[in-house]
């Protein structure tokens, strides 16, 4: 008898289940749906950064032949926004415009030329108001408030301290402080935003396809602004060309599209330009971080005091969460005995920021790691060693803000990068204009408290099993290229012990798939993976019951080998299909359901307001070593090599985990070396893929990935976050390497050649002056 074994899928490098469509050009993204009767939507945008709206005259546009609808802010008086406590944004501006490019009106016409002609006929009358591009300007005395009830444009002020901060600094042998500026970053995802809305006037029913990471939140907001029943809306997320947080909240694109489709009584497609995608924004806010650290002469941290000011843009978005993350995620990486935090989220007349990859954490972590690095140099302690000295102590990892930490692979990450980069032999001995640097980072695996508190589980997966022996995995989890559908399929296949080829999947279509909160904050693997395991376990139990009945044994005597269910090793057993046929007797098609919910212990601290933010079921950890060389004449920096270790708990799909880590490292590199948005009088001047400089393949380094598996006790097969942590650690590791190469430390991001040259020249002239 051949040995029969359940098929293994977890831990096996697995190409994506939807890969063949992508490489064949068959994958359909929102802009690829073009029904023959489809109208073209175009958006009229504000030419000014801040103004009172006096009149939007659309009469000439409406009169143009071929125009089917023109709508303005009068179309809906319902506001939208991701956070229930901060919904002030209208799909089309009402009363005021608050940033240059804010949507004011929308046209639906028979073709793009007509639509554009109609846009040109719209007369916008306004009274300009003072506008503020920087947080400092917006917070100054006597400013005009951009929103009511936001005095001096402060969206949220956070102020707390945990532990004895002043005593901590008194106990320190070395105290240093520094101020860092981190430029605003855009996701620059490859697919510009797009939506297609199909309104059926006969049934008063709306179907929307949209490029989104959060179809469920979009569904909620569509119902709100359309004032329609949620049951009268179907929300579909087709293939999505990248997210990185640019679509982790409902965007005006899909809302405007639905509003104009209803006004036109038909189907409208809006595909925004690259420039409009930049204006829609939701990127990482410009952040100023002032930070002070106290160390003993042995390098132990005694206290941290820091302040973050984020330029949030014209609307709240995730802003309150971002400023709370910036504080809360100071904890959980190292053992910190005392911390004081002050955060300001500021409203400005620039496009609204959002929850970009490494949300809230990235810039503050950069500041902390950089200052720690500097202080280690000052004390003559190896920069890798100082991190080892301050590790959290297990087995129960306690933090002042009561994080729920049950797995902590940071020590192993440090060991891995130390060895892989040959740190001990090479650090400090690289020769002129070459350097090696190190830093760490961490990130949650999904927020433990949901945005909308509904009492539902965080994730639900359905597995439909039918007479043909095929299993359809139904999940609302938005596949955005990160491999979530592959991951969920792997989890179910592993539990059932069958090959993944038995599975098909259907994702993110509100008509068929269970609700899911969306692909953001690295929640999907942890939450949806666990729900998939739960669903497969329930399905397996049904199959075992059926096999037991057929084999006339007790269920506990049935052995499941994936494709064969048997009672004892001598039993020939039943094939999977035979068990399925038995299971369907009297019940028909089976849908097994699985859920996941977070544990209350992970819901964050109650010690300060907003303590739930940064509460997670698990945290991923990373250590990174970066090697750079610098051209002594041009100060052009080349990243020669990156060694990236990340504790992902368990690599469910090592191929996808590598892909996520490489992509994170690289995106961090963009922020570190070249990326950044710029505004002149509120006008974005970097709104193209040429002016907003993402690295090309030419300057992208080789990246060696070290997967560390700490096996989290609550994660799906032990897995945690894999797609954000390594972005966070790249930036400080890179700056540490530049410092090692030149002997001067850049503070502001990005570290461009011109900034670096100026820094070196200033440092040389200062030294000469001192001599």
């Amino acid at each position, binding site marked *: 008898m051949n040995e029969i074994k359940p098929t293994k899928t977890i831990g096996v490098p697995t190409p994506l289940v939807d*890969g063949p469509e*992508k490489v064949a050009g068959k994958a359909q993204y929102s802009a690829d749906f073009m029904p023959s009767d489809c109208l073209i939507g175009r958006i009229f945008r504000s030419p000014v950064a801040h103004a009172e709206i006096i009149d939007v005259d659309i009469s000439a546009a409406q009169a143009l032949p071929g125009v089917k609808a023109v709508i303005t802010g009068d179309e809906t008086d319902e506001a939208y926004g991701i956070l229930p406590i901060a919904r002030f944004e209208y799909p089309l501006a009402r009363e005021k415009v608050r940033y240059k490019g804010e949507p004011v009106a929308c046209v639906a016409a028979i073709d793009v030329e007509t639509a554009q002609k109609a846009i040109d006929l719209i007369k916008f009358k306004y009274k300009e108001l003072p506008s503020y591009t920087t947080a400092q300007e917006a917070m100054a005395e006597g400013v005009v408030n951009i929103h009511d009830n936001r005095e001096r444009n402060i969206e949220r002020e956070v102020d707390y301290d945990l532990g004895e901060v002043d005593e901590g600094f008194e106990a320190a042998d070395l105290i240093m402080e520094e101020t860092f500026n981190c430029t605003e970053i855009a996701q620059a*995802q490859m697919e510009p935003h797009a939506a297609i809305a199909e309104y059926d006037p006969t049934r008063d029913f709306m179907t929307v396809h949209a490029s989104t990471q959060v179809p469920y939140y979009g569904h909620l907001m569509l119902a709100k602004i359309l004032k329609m029943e949620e049951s009268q809306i179907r929300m579909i997320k087709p293939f999505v060309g990248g997210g990185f947080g640019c679509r982790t909240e409902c965007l005006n694109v899909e809302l405007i599209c639905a509003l104009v489709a209803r006004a036109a009584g038909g189907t409208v497609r809006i595909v925004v330009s690259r420039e409009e995608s930049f204006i829609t924004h939701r990127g990482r806010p410009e952040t100023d971080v002032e930070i002070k650290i106290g160390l003993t002469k042995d390098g132990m941290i005694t206290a941290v005091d820091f302040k973050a000011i984020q330029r949030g843009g014209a609307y709240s978005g995730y802003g309150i969460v971002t400023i709370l993350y910036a504080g809360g995620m100071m904890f959980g990486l190292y053992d910190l005995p005392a911390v004081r935090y002050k955060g300001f989220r500021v409203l400005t007349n620039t496009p609204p920021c959002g929850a970009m990859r490494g949300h809230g954490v990235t810039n503050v972590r950069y500041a902390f790691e950089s200052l720690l690095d500097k202080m280690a140099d000052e004390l003559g302690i190896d920069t890798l060693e100082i991190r080892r000295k301050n590790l959290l102590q297990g087995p129960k990892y306690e933090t002042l803000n009561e994080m729920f930490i049950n797995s902590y692979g940071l020590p192993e990450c440090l060991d891995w990068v130390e060895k892989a980069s040959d740190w001990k032999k090479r650090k400090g001995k690289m020769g002129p204009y070459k350097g090696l640097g190190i830093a760490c980072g961490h990130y949650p695996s999904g927020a433990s408290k949901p945005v909308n508190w509904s009492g539902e589980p965080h994730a639900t997966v359905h597995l439909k099993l039918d007479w043909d022996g095929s299993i359809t995995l139904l999940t609302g989890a938005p596949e955005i290229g990160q491999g979530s559908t592959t991951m969920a399929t792997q989890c179910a296949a592993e539990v059932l012990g069958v090959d993944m080829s038995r599975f098909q999947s259907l994702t993110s279509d509100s008509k068929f798939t269970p609700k899911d909160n969306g692909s953001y904050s690295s929640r999907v693997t942890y939450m949806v993976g666990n729900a998939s395991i739960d669903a497969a376990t329930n399905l397996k139990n049904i199959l075992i019951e059926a096999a037991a009945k057929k084999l006339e044994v007790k269920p506990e005597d049935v052995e499941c080998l994936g494709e064969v269910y048997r009672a004892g090793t001598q039993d020939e057993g039943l094939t999977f299909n035979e068990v399925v046929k038995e299971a369907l007797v009297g019940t028909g098609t089976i849908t097994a359901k699985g859920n996941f919910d977070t544990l209350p212990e992970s819901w964050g601290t109650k010690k300060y307001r907003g303590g739930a933010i940064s509460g997670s079921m698990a945290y991923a950890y990373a250590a990174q070593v970066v090697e750079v060389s610098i051209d002594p004449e041009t100060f052009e920096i080349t990243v020669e090599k990156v060694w990236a270790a990340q504790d992902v708990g368990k690599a469910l799909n090592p191929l996808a985990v590598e892909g996520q880590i490489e*992509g994170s490292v690289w995106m961090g590199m963009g922020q570190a070396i070249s990326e950044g948005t710029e505004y002149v009088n509120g006008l974005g001047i970097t709104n*193209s893929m040429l002016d907003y400089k*993402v690295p090309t*393949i030419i300057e992208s380094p*080789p990246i060696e990935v070290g997967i560390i598996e700490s096996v989290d006790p609550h994660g799906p097969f032990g897995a945690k976050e894999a797609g954000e942590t390594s972005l966070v650690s790249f930036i400080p590791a890179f700056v540490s390497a530049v410092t090692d190469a030149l002997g001067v430390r850049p503070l502001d991001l990005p570290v461009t050649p011109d900034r670096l040259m100026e820094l070196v020249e200033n440092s040389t002239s200062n030294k000469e002056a001192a001599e």
Partner: protein
Amino acid sequence: MSEKRNKTLLHCTVNGKERDDVVKDNLLLADYLREEIGLTGTKIGCDGGECGCCTVLIDGVPQHACLRLAATCQEAEIETIEALAEQNRLSALQRGFHEKLGTQCGFCTPGMIMAAEGMLRENPNPSEDEIRQGLAANLCRCTGYVKIIEAVQFAIDELGSKGKAA
């Protein structure tokens, strides 16, 4: 209603099929392929010539379909991502991008693969540096390019060993 405008009778070959289409003179090749013929595998990621998502082969040479008017493709042989699979079997490059995870979100992928296809036809055995040069006009925001290079190298190996076998 749109004004009357000049149109051209375009005679060209798209993915091996001869075509005669009346096209507006201001119609971009990218829009001709996507909207007139329904070949939506070719993607548009920017406002003109910045990202490479719309790369197709024109007479075997990779070009941005968003920078070319359809009417200027008279007698040209145009190939898009849809043409690469042979009898529904993915080409070596397509298999490389799938199996090595050279594609994540997939939006840059058709253009990236067409750029690589053009490069390999010109130079079947490029070095890593030459691969980088060959794909320098194509942006990807997901992969960090590590696995894109591996995907192309996978295809080079496959095509090389097939060549030897033949």
